[in-house]
């Protein structure tokens, strides 16, 4: 089975065109770069499940990763950089633009495991209550306001259940309420599957950003100088943000275009003939329409209508066309083949002798 997959991948690789290949390699490189940074961050994590009471007064981010609370702001550029990578190279869809980054920042203050738990519970409570709230027919602002109160309630109860030192106050409550609202709208529009996928993407991205933010590389960069991190990241985003190629997920999305073409190209012989027949069939349809159009075309006023060369010989065969009566009912009648295309005469219009 594994070798099957391998040969299949090899075949796909051989067939892939440069437009497919380039973004694939770029996306792969970006993906592995991110994974590498995540691994570094994981390696730097001292304890995964620890409650803040055990840190005797130290901030969670410092106790677990050695990231000073005053330096929390410094990791924000890194987070935005990752959001840019995930969006324009990989093509991950998330709720909001920088929402995953803000969530990741909250994770840093709450803890690597406790953070996702807090987020999960508060969003879940919001999701369960939202349909009932929607039925109350509130305005959007009112709905968000109630959601915020609810999420705060959840956070307080979590604080009581787990640990009173749990730093949930820094949790981006508003962002959370917006995520819940977006979730419901996505659900209504594209169904639960799509909404769940985007929610999952948001969550994964937040976790990835969380661990990248606390890798040794990032921390030593921040320690070295406060201007280093924003400067490097700013320049990097300015360069990479100009990427105009396909995103990694778009390769899958547009794959049918080139896959199906290949299939058609392979089945050349009989297929080509079929197309030929179809065309001629359509030609006959068009020819029939041509006759129809000729019949339907209203006569022109005061002109000689000549349908064939014989008509030119004797004056008897030419006929002067009577003027068409304006029909005020015509606009209400059914329009046969209401194409709006002007009906053309198939007759020669002769106004002077030279025209003959």
């Amino acid at each position, binding site marked *: 089975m594994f070798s099957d997959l391998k040969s299949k991948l090899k075949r796909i690789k051989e067939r892939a*065109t*440069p*437009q*497919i290949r380039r*973004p694939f390699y770029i996306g792969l490189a970006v993906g592995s770069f991110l994974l590498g940074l995540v691994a570094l961050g994981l390696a730097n994590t001292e304890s995964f499940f620890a409650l803040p009471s055990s840190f005797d007064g130290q901030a969670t981010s410092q106790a677990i990763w050695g990231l000073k609370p005053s330096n929390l702001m410094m990791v924000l550029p890194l987070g935005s950089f990752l959001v840019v990578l995930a969006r*324009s190279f990989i*093509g991950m869809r998330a709720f*909001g633009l920088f929402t995953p980054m803000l969530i990741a920042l909250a994770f840093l203050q709450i803890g690597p495991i406790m953070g996702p738990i807090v987020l999960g519970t508060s969003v879940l409570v919001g999701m369960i209550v939202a349909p009932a709230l929607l039925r109350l*027919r509130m*305005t*959007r*602002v009112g709905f968000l306001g109630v959601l915020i109160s609810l999420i705060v309630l959840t956070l307080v109860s979590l604080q009581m259940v787990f640990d009173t030192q749990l730093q949930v106050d820094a949790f981006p409550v508003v962002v959370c309420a*917006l995520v819940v609202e977006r979730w419901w*709208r996505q659900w209504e*529009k*594209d169904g639960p599957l*799509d909404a769940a996928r985007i929610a999952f993407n948001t969550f994964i991205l937040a976790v990835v950003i969380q661990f990248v933010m606390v890798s040794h590389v990032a921390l030593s960069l921040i320690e070295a100088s406060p201007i280093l991190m924003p400067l490097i990241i700013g320049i990097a985003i300015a360069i990479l943000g100009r*990427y*105009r*190629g*396909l*995103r990694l997920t*778009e390769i899958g*999305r*547009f794959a*049918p*275009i*080139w896959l*199906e*073409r290949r299939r*058609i*190209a392979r089945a050349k012989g009989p297929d080509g003939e079929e197309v030929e027949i*179809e*065309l001629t069939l*359509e*030609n006959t349809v*068009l*020819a029939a*329409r*041509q006759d129809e*159009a000729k019949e339907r075309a209203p006569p022109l006023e005061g002109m000689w209508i000549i349908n064939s060369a014989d008509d030119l010989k004797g004056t008897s065969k030419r006929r002067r066309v009577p003027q068409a009566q304006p029909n005020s009912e015509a606009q209400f009648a059914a*329009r046969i*083949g*209401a*194409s*709006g*295309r002007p009906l*053309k005469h198939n007759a020669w219009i002769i106004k002077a002798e030279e025209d003959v």
Partner: protein
Amino acid sequence: MYMDIRRKILGEKADRRPVVDRGPPLERPLDEILGINMRNALIAKYNPRKAIEKARDKVAAKVALEAAGISCTRTIAVIDDYQTLAAFKPERDMPEAWAIKPARGSQGDGILLAVAKQGRNWVKGSGTVLTSEDVLHHIGKIVDGQFSGDSAAEDAALIEPLIIADPGLADLVPDGLPDLRVICLQSEPLMGMVRLPTNESDGKANLHQRAIGAGVSLETGRITRALQGGKPINVHPDTGSQLVGFEIPGWDRVLEMAGKCGPAVGLGYSGADIVLDINDGPLVLEVNAHPGLEIQNINQLGLKAQMKLMGEDFK
């Protein structure tokens, strides 16, 4: 071959559009698909911010389109604050069949349609009864900006008479309003498709909800390929009508109209949504400043290749 016959029927003059020789389909380069990143770059290049704002606001877009002589649906009322809403009496002001749309809504969010009047109430396409109160509440939600994305706090509700689809096209579908989408660069049409509602899509022409997307050849106005949920089909699953080969009535007029829409609003890269009305012929519903890319999958053609043929340098 199509073109020869077309010329024969319509005469040389009928070819207003410069016909670009796109070559036989299979020998075209595959390096031609337009991705979201590139599309965004094109939008930044061709669509000024003001024009995008105008296109996003259906009321402003309608004013601009009508000023350029492009026919749109008639307007019953525009309600943009609670004062106007308080003075608005659905009973008195609404016809039998109507559509309420948020001026700044996207992707069909917040659109309410009534197909008939029943006593003092109206009936939705699905049969649900709408009272005057329901209507006012919906307009209130729109005015609050509930359907207008995160940025807008307030919005206007646009009330229009319901469009009755031209049977020439609507006979293909069981229910709902088929709409035509033409993507243009400046005034040059690049690619076209028709979105056909199905029973599964609940009468909506939304491809995500399993409406049919059918590619339309720009030259002939015929459906070349139809897809439902990513699978190619030949006939409509609900009505059994033959889709592939069907000629869109009045396609020339649709293209002509679509080419005018972008410049009228100020957009260089645009997607026009056009419907065929039974009385008024083609009407512009909306001009998109960020037209979607799914049309490439439906036509099995890349927009980038079409643009290259138009002389776009992608810089």
